């Protein structure tokens, strides 16, 4: 079976796939133990599977393992942990910006990518950056507040 190599959360990763067109999502979840990215639609319509590839928010449900080879992949597990959360994760926790939390992976990864590019986004910029990420519980206003909180914390050198 062909092997594919990439960087995953700061370390080298190698994964075998019988199909070069296997979406990265299934390999992350089933071979590499990263359950943060979620299967939502398989159609790049909802954002639940979002990871960062070379820093860019990317839908792992339609990114093939062949496309990911040689790249740097970051999942939500790689951003931080419950004890040492990334400022975006800390802001989501502080704002209690989740209900079921199934979309939260995508929200946090999209927000992380946004803040990497635009450290102090306006509310409209945040809405635009997150418009491809769907939430059905209706936690949108909290998510927007969390993005703003993370941006403000970064500006002030705080955690969140």
């Amino acid at each position, binding site marked *: 079976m062909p092997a594919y190599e990439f960087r995953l959360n700061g370390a080298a990763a190698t994964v075998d796939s019988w199909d070069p067109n296997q979406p990265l999502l*299934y390999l992350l979840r089933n071979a590499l133990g990263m359950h943060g990215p979620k299967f939502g*639609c398989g159609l790049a319509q909802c954002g639940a599977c979002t990871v960062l590839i070379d820093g860019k928010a990317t839908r792992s449900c339609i990114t093939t393992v062949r496309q990911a080879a040689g790249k740097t992949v970051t999942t939500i597990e790689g951003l931080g942990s419950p004890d040492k959360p990334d400022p975006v994760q800390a802001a989501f926790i502080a704002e209690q910006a989740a209900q079921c*939390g*199934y979309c*939260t992976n995508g929200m946090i990864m999209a927000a992380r990518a946004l803040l990497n590019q635009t450290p102090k986004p306006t509310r409209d910029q945040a809405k635009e950056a997150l418009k491809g990420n769907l939430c059905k519980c*209706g936690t949108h*206003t909290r998510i927007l507040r969390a993005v703003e909180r993370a941006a403000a914390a970064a500006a002030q050198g705080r955690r969140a």
Partner: protein
Amino acid sequence: MISRRDLLKSGCTLVVGFRFQSSALAQDAAQSAAYGKPADPKPVDPKEVDSFLAINADGTVTIYTGKVDLGTGLRIAIRQMAAEELDLPIDRVTLVEGDTALTPDQGSTGGSTGLTRGGVEVRQAAATARQALLKLPPGQRMSGRFFTNVDPKAPLKDPAQYKVVGKPIPRPDLPAKCTGRHTYVQDFQLPRMLHGRVIRPPAIGAKLVSVDESSIRGIPDVRVVRIENFLGVVGKDEWATIRGARELKTAWSAGTELPGSDGLAQYVRQSRTAQIQTIVNRGDAAAALESSAKRFSATYFWPNQSHGSIGPSCAVADVRVDGSATVWSSSQGPHGLRQNLSKVFGLPEEKVRVVYLDGAGCYGGNGNEDVAADAVLLSKTVGQPVRVQWMRHDEHGWDPKGPQQLLDVEAGLDTEGHIQAWRTAMWVPAAVPGSRPLLAADAAGIAQDHGQGAGLLTQNADPPYTAANVQVVVNSIAATPLRPSNLRAPGKIANVFAVETFTDELAHAAGLDPLAFRLRGLSDPRGVEVLKRVAEMFGWQERGSPNPNAGQGSVKIGRGIAYARYKQAENYVALAMEVEVDTATGKISVRRIACAHDCGLVVNPDALKNQIEGCIVQTLSRALHEEVRFDASRVTSVDWSSYPILTFPEIPTIEVALINHPELPLLGAGEASCVTAAAALANAVFDATGAKLRVAPFTPQRVKAALA
């Protein structure tokens, strides 16, 4: 930290009742251990204190509840209620939810009963335990179980003394959810577990004619499972299983003829009724309508809607040859699911264990129970644990739907503009006793119940305002095209949409401000309070509609208000919103929303606000966008482009005021604030443009048609 001695103020010391883990997330510990029978059996009879709580050797307490946290915050709120009665700090109380081997059956988690039943029963058990502990002589050790029944008269703490209840304590699951560490049912794995996918027919009711297994010969390690019309693929590799299910060549017969979603209202009106019931009958509505100074009538329609779970339903089942089975599921009702799976698949109930694990928000009966049946049938057939996750088209296409509703409303005003008569006639799916049929069992030709239920669809169909002559007639239609089920605030969103937009029409006809018209007809002080509060928050100025200052260009601005007492017996909710309507395109933009909410005792104000905000946003989504489309054979809105929901650019600002009544009983809050959102939205569009929206969703095309 306080010692047990301190906290119980009795000097007694306790010996462990049961040895269960007491990590911050007890559920995780219980679930990783959960397999077959628990090593340490405990009672689950809801009559016994020991079913609800165990005091551990380390001074912590584990609470057991049959209710489950569907993302609603029950996981923290029930702990707060128990901690309060036991005088324990919250971090000494852990919670295990929805495990049929460990937790009492407290009914399914629906209808906003998580706290009103789940929390209240736990609280009473904790109060009983407290009394038992206080009766021990100083220094005496208490060993083992309480061996006592829950005392319905055990005194509860005076709310004035509350230290934990009423505090915005953060939800314990969020750190793990925000860092990718939370175990959802979609993430749960077992040794030797296979992945499974089920191939549903291309038309509802179609029969499987043939399967060409050679069509997937090139896909490694997959196996086709066929039982009559049930067709599945299992494999070691998830992607191989998905491709196998996608690429398997099959032929099916034609299905059952469906009426299609176009013209559904007409179909419903002409459907055979199983029953006609008059559920409200005050005065003589027919005569009073005849003698009214002014008469009005309108017809409202609400479409089929999907639960729209962001993660498709998933379950893991391990069925053994000895007939024992363990099923991991995010069902709202693990106990009910256990009973039904046992009955349908012929597994002895005492050997079946259902363990709840979080899933994606379901908001009612989505595909969770069907996918559990899929997993059980596949596991039973192949003799290995099987995980089935539905694909997106499965969830949108096959989740049982929030049903369509048709309402005719008539009213008459007297010469002073008071409501003299009101009559509502509605058409809803008939309730049929028994479990909702499971797709897998029907397909496999296994006998089962064909119950039909979608919740209490008929409440809130008459106005909450003074009216001497009121009649509500329910036409229960025998057959409904798509399998119905409970969807958040069942029936009541459509009913309040009809009642509250029609109320605005009456206010308009009476020449009164919509708020003033409502207050004139409302005597319940809690209702008056939420309306006045929301008016103050919103900055409501008294005037008639439409808005005389709606704007010069094509974009018109308006405001709307709506009020309801949920189920006519529970929460009081008033909601006001401001919208922009682009009359050139028909697009509605909601700018800001204010909501005042009284659910009696508030247990966790932040978790409660999260629920209220969520109810409002979700209902805006349902009112603006959501409609299940189907043709003569199948559902055609099977993804997020054909079934769009609200997105971030459409999100208004939302301000919520909680009116706390610690002295009053608590009321569930998972649904109530949904019911006013669609009505206030339609009223705001009328205020902006004069257009009357009576059919949901309020798409640009419908807005333009209403403007024409």
